[in-house]
């Protein structure tokens, strides 16, 4: 979230799209309802089903799964066509006025530079700005130049008419127009909209572009950086924010530093040189500090071993030669590339796409270490229904873990607040055998491994022998989260004095910091444990003394955009920051406290310093502007262009034969969650009180589809496609309705994905049906739109 949960109360319009917040983030509705009741805010819910969120909406708009870009492109076109944009904001704080390379083109769904044989856009050299002699992008602040971003967008989005929106998405034109009108009412400086989204936006072959479309809309409306605005990704797990910040992903290091790549970063020098650059004096370009964060990370990891002479052990970091997102990782596992795996509190046999295939991949492992509070579907994959344990070689260690109330540490919520938790009790069971925290488990394994390398030697033992790894306080026996948190915050080297925040970090080896974004969380005092309940001077509900939020306890990021060039808030009734002529008041200002509003641009993490309506260069793999493509499995042709699927999405050869068409599997299928269960179910399907509420795997279908298939409410049904067949109960409900797409009614099968073969409440996993294809940029799987058929079970 650029903003945070409480800030939703400051909105005039709340658009929930690709999220079902009433079910998956129920506490958010406290703040939504506050806005509705106290500011007469309007709640727009856009969703294929009439959900519990929709039941609370002022305005509900249905749409076909996988057509968000048509819908959002329609709103962008409505705003541009009727000039419903916040002109001053757009001119000053976005790249609307930037002139684009004359060689950049868009033709029938393809941007310039496409290489069909490679299904990719190669070097993307035309997706660039025209530069002046000082190497600063050329601008036309009148927005009239035909090559300026604004004019290119007007042309690009003019195809997204309300009629086309209706034909493609199935949302009736009148409903769409009401949404467009309500949303764009926030282009005025004294009106603000927030957008709440989740996996309904990201889990598509065009997921990143879906998020881009939301960002474009919010920039056009002037809704970024202000109270009640922002684009707010609703995180589904208590610490998926923190686990991402700390880089449990192949492509990044802690604090969103890039993971070293063989070609791009063969040396530390090359790595540091790859940081974004700018010649524009108006741009803060915060990433220009990157080398300080990198070297401090290397010091935190390798301690005294990391010296200037050996490039701070940069070469000790593993370098990747290819991307290994989840889908590729499991394909490689299936090929037998890996010998072993760690599953730390995760249940991929239910949560990953094409789950039957993932289970087969796991059988190829020699060993599996799983840490969990109880048996999960994944840790018992070797005795799942249909498997023959006697034929599965995998050695499995299931380590009992401590639950969240049995250990101490912090978790980061969607609003980036790192909040400290305390230990209430020990894990259940006898002291000698009972569960341990994941921290303790990792510490034990690492220290044992270090002993082995000490004793026996082995391949490249230095990182293991010399790592800065001392987490057990003197006189104690267990690793301390406080010692870890202090390292994450950073300290001077070698005397280990806590640094105040990341401004203190250096690239000469004199500081160590595990994650620059969290620098400031433990400068001496544990800021994450704070419980102050006073609000800040702007009284907008930031509660700056409650816990701590990254970066630097800034509660609303890009807050320089909350004021005009004079430093006056766009709306003084809910100001975030203001400039007094010599200093900033309110929230912790973005980009340093001394630069005034006229001196620097607000979007400090972009090297232009402004918001990107047009995403230049290599930022994205699939286009600088958004364009509608159909999901990989779709029942209709693409009405916008002759590319059916996102032309840059990667197709893995091995699963090509598993994709189906509407002739074989006529119904649109989608997957989602309910409030009573959580994710892959391992944390809820063992809780009797929740199983009482939702005991079984079920799907939702319309009365018309039910009638056509002879299915009654409560019947057992089979849902199937080329990847698998699953059984479920059918909930026949008026909340699901066929949508008329290009003149034809289309039915949908909606499924929860919480169930699997393990735990107390068992059921088939929806992900046995989902395809192994993902977003062109992130490879997040397309869970939200695929094809299947359904039949009544005898």
């Amino acid at each position: 979230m650029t903003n945070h949960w409480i800030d939703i109360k400051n909105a005039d319009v709340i658009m929930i799209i690709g999220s079902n917040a009433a079910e998956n983030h129920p506490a958010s509705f406290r703040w939504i309802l506050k806005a509705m009741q106290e500011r007469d805010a309007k709640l727009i819910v856009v969703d294929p089903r009439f959900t519990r969120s929709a039941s609370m909406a002022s305005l509900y708009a249905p749409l076909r799964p996988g057509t968000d870009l048509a819908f959002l492109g329609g709103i962008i076109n409505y705003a541009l066509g009727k000039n419903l944009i916040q002109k001053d904001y757009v001119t000053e704080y976005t790249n609307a006025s930037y002139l684009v390379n004359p060689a950049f083109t868009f033709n029938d769904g393809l941007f310039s530079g496409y290489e069909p044989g490679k299904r990719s856009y190669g070097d993307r050299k035309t997706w660039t700005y025209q530069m002046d002699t000082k190497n600063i992008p050329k601008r036309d602040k009148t927005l009239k130049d035909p090559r300026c971003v604004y004019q290119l967008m007007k042309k690009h989005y003019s195809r997204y008419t309300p009629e086309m929106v209706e034909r493609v998405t199935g949302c009736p034109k009148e409903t769409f127009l009401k949404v467009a009108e309500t949303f764009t009412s926030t282009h005025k400086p004294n009106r603000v909209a927030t957008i709440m989204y989740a996996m309904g936006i990201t889990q598509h072959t065009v997921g990143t572009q879906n998020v881009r479309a939301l960002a474009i809309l919010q920039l056009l409306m002037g809704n970024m950086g202000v109270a009640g605005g922002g684009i707010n990704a609703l995180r589904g797990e208590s610490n998926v924010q923190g686990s991402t910040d700390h880089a449990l992903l192949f492509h990044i290091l802690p604090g969103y530093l890039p993971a070293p790549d063989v070609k791009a970063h063969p040396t530390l020098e090359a790595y540091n040189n790859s940081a974004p650059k700018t010649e524009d004096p108006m741009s803060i370009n915060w990433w220009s500090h990157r080398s300080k964060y990198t070297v401090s990370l290397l010091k935190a990891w390798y301690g005294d071993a990391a010296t200037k002479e050996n490039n701070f052990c940069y070469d000790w970091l593993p370098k990747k030669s290819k991307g290994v997102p989840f889908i590729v990782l499991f394909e490689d596992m299936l090929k037998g590339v890996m010998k072993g795996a760690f599953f730390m509190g995760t249940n991929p046999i239910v949560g990953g796409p094409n789950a039957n295939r993932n289970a087969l991949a796991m059988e190829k492992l020699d060993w599996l270490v799983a840490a969990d509070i109880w048996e999960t579907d994944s840790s018992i994959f070797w005795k799942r229904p249909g498997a023959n344990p006697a034929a599965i070689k995998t050695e499995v260690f299931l380590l009992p873990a401590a639950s969240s109330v049995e250990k101490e540490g912090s978790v980061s919520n969607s609003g980036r607040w790192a909040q400290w938790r305390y230990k209430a009790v020990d894990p259940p069971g006898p002291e000698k055998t009972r569960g341990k925290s994941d921290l303790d488990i990792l510490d034990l394994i690492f220290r044992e491994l270090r002993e082995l390398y000490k004793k026996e030697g082995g391949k490249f033992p230095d990182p293991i022998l010399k790592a800065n790894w001392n987490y057990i306080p003197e006189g104690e026996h267990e690793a301390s989260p406080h010692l870890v948190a202090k390292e994450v915050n950073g300290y001077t080297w070698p005397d280990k004095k806590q640094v105040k925040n990341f401004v203190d970090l250096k690239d000469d080896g004199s500081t160590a910091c595990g994650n620059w974004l969290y620098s400031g969380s433990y400068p001496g005092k544990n800021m994450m444990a704070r419980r102050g309940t006073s609000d800040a001077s702007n009284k907008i509900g930031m509660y700056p003394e409650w816990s701590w939020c990254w970066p630097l306890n800034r509660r609303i990021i890009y807050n320089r955009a909350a004021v005009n060039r004079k430093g006056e808030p766009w709306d003084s009734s809910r100001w975030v920051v203001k400039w007094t002529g010599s200093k900033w008041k309110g929230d912790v200002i973005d980009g340093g406290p001394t630069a005034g509003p006229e001196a620097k641009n607000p979007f400090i993490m972009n090297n232009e310093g402004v918001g990107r309506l047009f995403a230049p260069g290599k930022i994205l793999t699939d286009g600088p502007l958004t364009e509608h493509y159909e999901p990989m499995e779709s029942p209709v042709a693409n009405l916008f262009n002759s590319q059916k699927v996102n032309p840059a999405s990667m197709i893995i050869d091995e699963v090509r034969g598993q994709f189906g068409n509407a002739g074989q599997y006529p119904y649109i299928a989608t997957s989602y969650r309910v409030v009573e269960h959580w994710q892959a179910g391992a944390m809820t399907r063992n809780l009797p009180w929740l199983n009482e509420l939702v005991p079984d795997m079920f799907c939702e279908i319309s009365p018309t589809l039910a009638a056509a298939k002879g299915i009654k409410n409560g019947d057992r049904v089979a849902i199937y496609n080329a990847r698998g067949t699953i059984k479920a109960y059918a909930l026949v409900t008026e909340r699901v309705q066929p949508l008329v797409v290009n003149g034809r009614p289309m039915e949908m099968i909606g499924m929860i994905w919480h169930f699997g073969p393990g735990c107390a409440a068992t059921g088939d996993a929806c992900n046995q049906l989902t395809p192994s294809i993902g977003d062109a940029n992130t490879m997040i799987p397309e869970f939200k739109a695929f094809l299947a058929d359904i039949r009544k079970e005898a």
Partner: protein
Amino acid sequence: MSGKAFLVDTTKCSGCRACQVSCKQWNNLPAEKTTFFAGPEYTNPAELSAITFNHVKFFPIDRSHPGKPLWTIMHKKCYHCEDANCIKVCPQEAISKVEGWTVIDQSKCIGCGACVNECVYKVPHVLDETMPKYGAEGSIQKDKSYKCHACMQNKRDVPLCAQHCPTGALTYGDRTALVKRARARLKEIAAEYPRASIYGLEQYGGLRVITVLKDSPEKYGLPLNPEPIDMHKAEAIRNTYHLISLFSFGLPSLKRVAYRISRSMVG
């Protein structure tokens, strides 16, 4: 009518069922065994029971409603009638008012089912099988009647169901203030829900659970003018029961038969 009350505002309920679970936790009640959904939409279990004191019912969606489809999700618990049938008919005087709340004293209850029969809202239930409490010592005895006691038995300042409600759909406070708030809410929602209503202001001398509804009470199975049981009739039933139950040998099943006979005899 003074004292505390609950306000259920169905226009604010998102159906998260925190109330249903919270009650089970505070009172250490076991879960019910369910399959699929026992009631409309996500409703589970079908109704209140001897181990479910808070219940959320999901009504089928009404697509004919003017403006937008109407989906009502309604919290239900004991309404704690001021003039409560159950208190009047209980032959053991096991049910009484505590701080205005209707509370069953299970140590006196014989499981005759009188309260079950006379509650128009189908709130109290007699437990068939003794069950262990969840997460606490002891068990929940069979052949006793159970229902919401507004946390009078496991006392707390604000009942956990109301404290946990994330949207403010279920609140707890002074009844006078809540009635005022319900009336104000009715005005606020008039445009969106033209048939909206308030339930619980007068029924049985006034209920301690006031419900703001999106439509008329009958739509949700709530009787507009239920007749409180006549004092004399209740006394006659109790007297007859005392006589007949002498032959029940202390067996709860026979006591229930005795109650049914007495009731039919009194007519």
